[in-house]
């Protein structure tokens, strides 16, 4: 986004409020940027709360850096300030994958989900799990996907952790895109399997069902 001389600087605008953080759209050195700010929690004493928010801010930035090395597109980090538990990152100008899936044709739905499969496959092969893997945590800028929200991300090669990523994603697809859930999840698995291999893909599907059987990650009423 370019700005003509004399135009006023953009006021920070709250675009999303989660349980842990607030997301603002604002200007950073003349360009629109996203500020993710972890908010203080009154149920924790300040010494503890500050330390946790500092630690998680660094952790999230670190995870974003690590997945980028594996070929996973994430918004570019522009500034990190653990003291104010703030990350400023590139503004991805596009909807979440969840929103986009509603309005694009079937072949495009399949294509997007297959790309997401490739991306998550790369992460898992590289030993990183997302921890909160839903289609609300994927942004699409003209078809190019970006993964966001690595607050619960971690280094893990455990089948259990990867299985939870798949299950949460499957659930998210099922609950919001019921009519074509099977199509998009199969497309996702095709992309995923193309990276991790047939054998591992099957194993992970099996793991996902096993975790699902425990009945823990049920859908919201």
């Amino acid at each position, binding site marked *: 986004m370019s700005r003509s001389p004399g135009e006023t600087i953009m006021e920070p605008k709250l675009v999303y409020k*989660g*349980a842990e953080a607030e997301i603002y759209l604002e200007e950073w050195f003349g360009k629109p940027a996203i500020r993710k700010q972890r908010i203080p*929690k*009154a*149920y*924790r*004493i300040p*010494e*503890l709360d500050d*330390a*946790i928010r500092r630690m998680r801010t660094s952790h999230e930035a670190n995870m974003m850096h690590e997945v980028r090395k594996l070929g996973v597109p994430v918004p570019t980090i522009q500034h990190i300030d653990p003291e104010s538990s703030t990350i400023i990152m590139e503004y991805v100008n596009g909807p979440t994958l969840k929103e986009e899936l509603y309005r694009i044709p079937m072949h495009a739905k399949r294509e997007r989900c297959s790309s997401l499969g490739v991306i998550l496959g790369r992460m898992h092969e590289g030993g990183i799990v997302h*921890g*909160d893997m839903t289609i609300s945590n994927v942004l699409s800028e003209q078809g190019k996907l970006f993964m966001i929200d690595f607050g*619960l991300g971690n280094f893990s090669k455990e089948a259990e952790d990867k299985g*939870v990523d798949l299950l949460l994603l499957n659930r998210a697809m099922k609950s919001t895109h019921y009519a074509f859930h099977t199509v998009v999840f199969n497309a996702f698995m095709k992309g995923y399997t193309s990276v991790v291999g047939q054998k591992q893909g099957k194993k992970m599907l099996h793991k996902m069902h096993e975790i699902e059987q*425990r*009945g*823990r990650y*049920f*859908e*919201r*009423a």
Partner: protein
Amino acid sequence: MQFTIVLYCLGIESTAHTFGVSVVTDRGEILSDVRDVYTSAPGTGIHPREAAEHHSEVAAHLVSQALSQAKIRASKLAGVAVALGPGLGPCLRVGATVARALSSYLQIPLIPVNHAIGHIEIGTLTAGATDPLIVLVSGGHTAIAAFSGGHWRIFGETEDITLGNLYDMFAREINLPSPAGPEIEKLTQKSTEFIPLPYVVKGNDVSYSGLLTASLAMLRSGKRLEDVCYSMQEVSCSMLAEAVERSLAYTGKKEVLLTGGVAANKALQSKLREVSRLHDAAFYVVEGRYSGDNGAQIAWTGMLAFRAGVVTTIDQARVRPKWRLEDVEIPWRNDHGT
């Protein structure tokens, strides 16, 4: 002409250190609630066989006391409920034996009850919640659950030891008597310094074993007991509060119910009250005298189960030391409360 028929159910609790007997009515009145608690020497935990011996000694007396306080004859009972698990095998077997004998002698139905479901039901009864997110904290459980599709579903839980374990195992090392929660909470009042300790939340789950090790290490390194207790309580309760917040945001429930033995902890209560406020949910705590293990939680859950047709036979009524609460079918609830 109208007849009012009142059903009476006797419940027996013997999953761990408490042997409890209670009589309730189908209207939710608790007519009697008597118990006797096995206590181990400071610095030691429950010895399952000794606890079972204790239970055998007090059982007969407590059953007749529960009936006489309720002012009803045994022949009036509609059923006898017993906690078949989860818990310590030798302890469970005492309660199960007594219940089987009563059922056989009185020719009344035997009702199997899961102890954890008992904590949930006595909590909703005494606090008045209808469709809450459950925070169950006791020696045996640290779990966040919500009702869906005929079962209580576990949303988050401890990956290793429970909150009650954390306090009891810490107390055992420093020769405090157990259950140690109240003692530890008293000590926190005299703290002057917060000591950083490991804070481990993984999604909706918590992990307390590292916190226990670190707390004991701090103590050995010369930190004041009061400060270690305060910091351990602060960290452990904040961890659970965060896991509850995540579950609350996800499920969108409008009620939170704190139940189980550790529910009496004031620090935990105030943190969960704040979390509930942040998410516009009403906050409930189980009535104080029913937070610890008791017969009423079994009698009342037994009554609900009995009315929904849940009964068992004497040869089927085996104890289930590892019975998980999400495995229990709950025909007396639907997805929007009872």
